[in-house]
């Protein structure tokens, strides 16, 4: 490894650890003067090498929405979490369901969340989600009362170790009553095929 690549790796490692938060490639480039500024490609290479260096170690390099982060490996959490007296927060189902609805259906109003969940959404939940900077108001729906439209933030993605919303677990499909009935009919060996032209479902 040339001196430059070596030095570059030191700086990138130092920056990621000193920042204590995800750092973007742009921010990494900003550490250098214009003459010595590395290409993004070189930075990516360095980050990959760094990740390889960390194999078998207590830490790893991950890419999340706001950039790259060095984090402690998940399998060490039983020990590491003992550093803090407080247990990590456990989120209520109501909060997680509200968050899930905002994540998957954004932008969405509180009323729409309530319609789907079948119960009122407490103001506290919205407050907690906003204070954690996981959700924010991105606009207002143009209906009477102009209800706020909520969406998730980069901090939400960072917290859940996601690069983008695309990486969210896939949502279960909704089965339609009619289509299921048709499927059942088609699969039923005792039943003659339905009359008329074949329909493509």
């Amino acid at each position, binding site marked *: 490894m040339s001196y430059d690549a070596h030095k570059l790796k030191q700086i990138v490692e130092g920056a990621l650890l000193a920042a204590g938060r995800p750092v973007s490639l742009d921010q990494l480039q900003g550490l250098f003067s214009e003459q010595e500024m590395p290409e993004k490609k070189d930075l990516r290479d360095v980050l990959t090498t760094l990740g390889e260096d960390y194999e078998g170690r207590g830490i790893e390099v991950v890419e999340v929405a706001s950039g790259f*982060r060095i984090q402690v490996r*998940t399998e060490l959490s039983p020990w590491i979490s003992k550093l803090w007296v407080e247990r990590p927060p456990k989120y209520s189902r109501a909060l997680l369901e509200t968050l899930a609805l905002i994540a998957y259906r954004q932008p969405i109003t509180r009323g729409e969340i309530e319609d789907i969940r079948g119960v009122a959404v407490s103001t506290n939940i919205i407050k907690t989600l906003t204070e954690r900077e996981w959700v924010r108001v991105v606009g207002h729906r143009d209906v009477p009362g102009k209800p706020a439209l909520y969406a998730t933030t980069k901090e939400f993605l960072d917290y859940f170790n996601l690069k983008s919303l695309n990486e*969210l677990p896939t949502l279960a499909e909704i089965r339609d009553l009619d289509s299921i009935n048709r499927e059942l009919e088609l699969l039923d060996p005792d039943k003659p095929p339905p009359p008329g032209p074949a329909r493509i479902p």
Partner: protein
Amino acid sequence: MPFAVVQGEPWLTPPTDLYIPPDALEVFLDAFEGPLDLLLYLIRRQNLDILDIPIAKITDQYVSYIEMMNELRLELAAEYLVMAAMLAEIKSRMLLPRPVSDGDEHEEDPRAELIRRLQEYERYKQAAEDLDELEHMTRDTFQASAELVERHVEAVDPDVSLREIMLALSDVLHRADMFTSHRVEKEPLSVREKMSHVLERVSGRNFVSFTELFDISEGRLGVVVTFLAVLELIKGSLLELVQAEAFAPIHVKAKVS
């Protein structure tokens, strides 16, 4: 004392088709996220197909449950009662003979809307569980950080545009009502600039030769400007001219010793 009174009938033991253990009743409100959640629970625990809910059975279970909650004087959210009414309505519509369907134009199943809502809710209930399974910061993983002991705090100087200075000056002159003063307006800045230069040259020195202040390379205009500057400085008592005797060289001295 009966365990509960359901539809006027006293129950001495918990109903066997009620799939909720009685000790769960106290935590009822916490355990379920609303009527849809409760219904899903009843359906799932009995391995019923959500698309073919035995509506009469489920309704009975749901209603007996709600009545029991009332008996125990647990405060029920209004949503639970609304759902009970909806179930009762579906149940009665299911009992009515369905009109003969003509072709594809068949009457919608009375349960359709409920099934749609149940499924819709269930997928987000699942999504919430999936979300909770994801790696959480501060639970499953932790931000690694290391101190940088010697931080050079680099102060960045603010940018200023000439225009900002102009606007600031215009403001302050307006306030001081100095735009009306012709004296200020006519004064060429080159003289002011030269005043500063001359002052700087003489400051800290005892005597400076008068001629030394003039730079011939600045040309005729430059000499005039310097001369005006010196006069301005003398007028403002910033500079003093000293001549030992008549026709001796003139020296300049800052007025402040």
